[in-house]
């Protein structure tokens, strides 16, 4: 049986929101623990920049302090990219998908969300943040594990995986982009091996992506901006590297189309292939020389394009009017799928 287009979209976005939530929890956690600038202060504003949320943030708060940034990203129901909002969005999708996903997937998300709603602002103060972030990260990983162990492998599985890896690739490029520019104000000025302060900052980047130990295994000595960026972009064994993610997207999309003889999706396929080819053809030194930010921005736009093309091919979404984009791409979000209608019981 073919998958209902709306279900495919809900599955795709459920996976994306869960992946995004896990990444945000990681970033908040590591920020609190490791990310201190030369004066020993934590630069909380960098998180707002990371997600290109400056406008939304300053509509609600006047200053980026530990307190405001944490509230904004953990509990704030009006911030669509807060953890609470993302888990709510994931749960709403799961609620729609209950006939399709396993009972265990639904129950875990339902219980997780209900626990999240019980959190009070005092529970997520800077002091309690690490504990809360660890808990959220674990719940997201539990979701991933339950999904792996119980989700029936039909078309839905492929859309889930594509959503997860597109989001993961996007998160890695964002993390790398903002950290690189926070740490390397103008390329070429810094010491090639990095000051001790820089090294600790690069450790933070790697820890945010759970990549520190893996990096050390590849580069036992030293740490330069180029090796860290190269590792996060291109490493073939690191589960959060962009290349690793795009290979996964490529594999799942190919198998989805062939196994179910789906006629659509060739545009998305071409874009994925093109992205993968581009990623594999440029050494990191050349990328840095020509501008890492521009490169990462291009990768993000390709991921957005892939999402759009997947939507048009499989979710029944009409092509949108062409939009002129110049600012950093904000995080994408779901367009249809979720029911907007409210009715009384018939």
């Amino acid at each position, binding site marked *: 049986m073919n*998958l209902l287009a709306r279900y495919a979209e809900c599955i795709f976005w459920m996976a994306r929101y869960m992946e995004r939530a896990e990444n945000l929890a990681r970033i908040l956690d590591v920020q609190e623990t490791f990310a201190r600038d030369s004066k020993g202060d934590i630069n909380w504003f960098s998180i707002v920049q990371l997600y290109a949320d400056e406008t939304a943030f300053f509509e609600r708060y006047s200053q980026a302090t530990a307190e405001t940034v944490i509230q904004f990203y953990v509990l704030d129901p009006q911030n669509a990219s807060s953890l609470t909002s993302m888990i709510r969005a994931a749960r709403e999708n799961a609620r729609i998908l209950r*006939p399709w996903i396993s009972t265990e997937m639904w*129950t875990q998300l339902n219980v997780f969300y209900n626990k999240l709603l019980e959190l009070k602002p005092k529970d997520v103060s800077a002091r309690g943040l690490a504990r809360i972030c660890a808990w959220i990260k674990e719940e997201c990983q539990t979701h991933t594990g339950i999904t792996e162990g119980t989700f029936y492998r039909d078309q839905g599985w492929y859309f889930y995986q594509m959503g997860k890896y597109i989001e993961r690739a996007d998160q890695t490029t964002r993390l790398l982009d903002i950290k690189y520019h926070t740490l390397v104000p103008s390329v070429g000025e810094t010491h090639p091996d990095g000051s001790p302060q820089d090294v600790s900052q690069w450790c933070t980047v790697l820890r945010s992506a759970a990549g520190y130990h893996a990096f050390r295994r590849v580069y036992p000595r030293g740490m330069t901006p180029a090796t860290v960026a190269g590792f996060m972009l291109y490493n073939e064994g690191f589960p959060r590297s962009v290349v690793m993610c795009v290979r996964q997207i490529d594999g799942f999309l190919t198998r989805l189309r062939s196994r179910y003889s789906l*006629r659509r999706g060739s545009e998305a396929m071409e874009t994925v292939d093109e992205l993968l080819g581009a990623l594999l053809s440029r050494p990191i030194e050349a990328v840095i020389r020509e501008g890492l930010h521009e490169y990462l921005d291009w990768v993000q736009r390709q991921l957005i394009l892939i999402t759009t093309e997947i939507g048009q091919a499989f979710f029944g979404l009409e092509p949108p009017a062409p939009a002129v984009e110049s600012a950093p791409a904000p995080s994408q979000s779901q367009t249809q799928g979720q029911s907007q209608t409210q*009715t*009384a019981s*018939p």
Partner: protein
Amino acid sequence: MTGTKAVDLLSSYDSGVYFDELFGKPGMEAAHTALIRERLAAIDFDDLRRRAADVERELYNLGITFLVYSEKDAVDRILPFDIIPRVISAQEWAHLEAGVQQRVTTLNLFLHDIYHDQKILKDGIIPPELVLGNANFRPQMVGLDIPHNTYIHIMGVDLVRDRYGTFRVLEDNGRVPSGVSYVVENRHMMQRIFPDLMQGIGIRPVDNYGHKLLEALYEIAPASAGGDPQGALLSPGAYNSAYFEHIFLAREMGVPLVEGRDLVVENDRVYMKTTDGLSPVHSIYRRLGDDFLDPKAFNPDSLLGVPGIFDAYRKGNVALANAIGTGVADDKAVYCYVPRMIKYYLDQDPIIPNVDTRICREPDALRYTLDHLDELVVKPVGEAGGYGITIGPRATKAELEDCRAKLLADPANYISQPVVDLSVCPTMVNDGIEPRHVDLRPFAITGSKTWVLPGGLTRVALKKGTLIVNSSQGGGSKDTWVLEDRA
């Protein structure tokens, strides 16, 4: 209460003048529940309470909930579940099953008749204006033939038991009756928390409801579908208060749960939008009222329906369960005539009698109702969910006067019935076990023939003394056990 055995609580239990579902009544002791009573009495009250708390948490975690809308937002609520079961003997059930089958058969004959020759109207058994002038009568259905002449594929019959132990029909539900998911889920809950109580009792299973429903959907699918029709469940969406039930049934049947926007009609055929484009749909269990089904044929403002689906239906390219236009058969005014219909179509007496009902559109009945307002239950004919009901003996003077004014303004909108002393069942309350009123909604599925799910939904009025069991009015539910015939 620590250490109190249920037996202590049950020994001081007093069901008063009401018929008791666990104990029966002096002269009519419930012999079939003896073993269950004995086992129940052996369980410590704290243990019972713990099990009740476990169930509540589990229902919430599983999201077996319905949405309640407040001014600000929608809240998930569980339907309160009482862990003490309601037990029906094999003999009682044989009687009820036959009665429900008789009723479903009759209403289907009635619907076929009024949408074809209208003999029952011509023979003066039912006032024509009551049928033809009914808001739920669909002129579009006149002359249309549908598979097996079955209109009501899914029926819920609300039964109550009076103080003499007689079951009576309180209401028919022939449009989109809900509650069957709770029947199956309640049983799952009981199996998890009360294996000791259920062991060896011989309880008839309820978990094949989805299978029977899918079978019926296949039986009514158009021949053009071939041997492998595509079924679907059409839901108003995730914000509908019965959404859990829609999920449950779609999952049990293994069919997609679709919303109106997932379906399109092309060349009078219905398709769903899939990842590989349009895919045909042949048989639809729709949980959407007639009004919302097709903005082109019915309410043009409906955003939930599928434009053109009625034309596809009329041409026999898609089956709908229930059929369009069944609302005229479960109307509270038409209800009064069902015993006469049974006589007319089947030449039988009703196996399960109605509650004595007066139709206020008839002058004598109106006069009687106005004269005995403080003794009667007055119900508007068009409302569901227990809304708009005045229970005479419990109403204040002002409420009675309000009711009188409404009756005089629009008598045809009301019926009246004596207060039925609903039977009671032992129910867990804060500090013990007390009698609470219950009703019973058996569910029947009809494709080419009628099958009745053993038991049904027992709803319980959790508030002391109240007779209204509807979930929207604070009611809960119990597991309903039909015992196997071991004779």
